[in-house]
């Protein structure tokens, strides 16, 4: 695997900051907006954005986590485990503006499931999507993000990994390309 850092820790921080200001442009003081991170890795993005937003706004921003396991379209179609993570939405989303948050937008299937899962909690006024990395031209479904950290053009054989200071030791986004003989 060939490894290429497409977002280093400095740019990572800048990107998060920019996304926060873009969110503030649309949602002002977040009085009617909530952020919901998709399990498992979207939660990391939400945690970071929440703390950054709260620093800028000086007030609490409502955040939740959503697990989409039971809403996936590949139950019984994959060897991969379909074991759920925790959903934690302890506020009402009815008539709220919801920003769904994930780390990498790829086929769009996770987001499709996420929209389904979200509706089980009520009818939001509006749903938007924020993604840290957008692997464009790779969508299986007609889904696009409203806020994008970094857009990348990738091949199916490639893999994009978002790494976190808290988990992997450093904030960065890495693109893994298989060497030609591995393809």
């Amino acid at each position, binding site marked *: 695997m060939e490894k290429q850092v497409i977002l280093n820790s400095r740019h990572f921080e800048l990107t998060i900051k920019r996304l926060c200001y873009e969110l503030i442009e649309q949602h002002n003081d977040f009085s009617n907006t909530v952020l919901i991170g998709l399990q498992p890795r979207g939660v990391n993005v939400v945690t970071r954005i929440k703390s950054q937003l709260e620093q800028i706004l000086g007030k609490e921003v409502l955040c939740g986590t959503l*697990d989409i*396991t*039971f*809403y*996936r379209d590949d*139950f*019984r*179609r994959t060897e991969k*485990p*379909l*074991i*759920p993570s*925790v*959903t934690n939405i302890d506020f009402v989303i009815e008539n709220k503006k919801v920003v769904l948050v994930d780390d990498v937008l790829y086929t769009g299937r996770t987001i499709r499931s996420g929209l*389904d899962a979200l*509706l*089980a*909690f*009520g009818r939001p006024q509006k749903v938007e999507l924020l993604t840290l990395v957008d692997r464009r031209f790779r969508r299986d479904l007609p889904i696009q993000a409203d806020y994008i950290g970094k857009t990348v053009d990738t091949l199916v054989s490639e893999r994009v990994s978002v790494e976190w200071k808290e988990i992997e030791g450093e904030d960065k986004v890495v693109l893994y390309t298989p060497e030609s003989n591995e393809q």
Partner: protein
Amino acid sequence: MNNNLSVEHLTGIKDLTRQDIELIFKTADNFKDVINRPIKKVPSLRDITIANLFFENSTRTRLSFELAEKRLSADVVNFSAASSSVKKGETLIDTVNNILSMKVDMVVMRHPNPGAAKFLSERIGAKVVNAGDGTHEHPTQALLDAFSIREALGEVEGKKVVIVGDILHSRVALSNIYCLQKLGAEVMVCGPTTLIPKYIHELGVKVEHNLRKALEWCDVANMLRIQLERQDIKYFPSLREYSMQYGLTKEILDSLPKEIKVMHPGPINRGVEITSDVADSKQSIILQQVENGVAVRMAVIYLLAAKIERH
């Protein structure tokens, strides 16, 4: 953590590993969350059909299974022996095969004969979930009981559980013994000598005939019903005498050195094995057991359905 059950059917707790039970609990945690949402339904089993075959009466278990199936979006057909061709002389295999030819993927069955679920699982293509087979096992009840203990006390490991009552005729008792032991709990059975199987100590359980001593020992008391319908002979002089010796009253409960949890698999015979004020006390987790029943059954069905081949 392992993410697949080691079994293809749920015929008894005896066949499960501790990992299986923990996987079911972890999945049930999530389903418990789902059934407390405004929309209590997930679409996972949209393309699965489940038949509930009840050759023996049931209210709670049947409702609980049906709700669990519906909340997973499965299609459900119900069948009860009272209104079926079983009365006309059809065999179990014929009845089930007829139902399966209508493209059913999973069978939930309660049957008066011990081993009926295992017998079926060896002969048909569909997944089988045992909802009680005679006096043998009632695995989902044991799972929800242990799940409720875990919820009430934080964990099952190291806890002391006494099962009181008609152990001889109880499938709940046997499944509970297997399940609690696999999770590392200590189990005691308590009841009149005639209602305790002679060699039950071979399963590694303590035997006690004095209710007070049993209650002083335990963290949780699981009170069982006297199964009069299965008792072909008299096992004790009268129900009143049984109730005086083995009925759990508020006086006994309040006089214990520590606060224990009281469970009951239902249906309750108020005034026999448990008095009304105990059943309705804050130490009773009977209604939590019923709520957890749906979540645990959703987990079992979900995990078994994951193993159904796509046609």
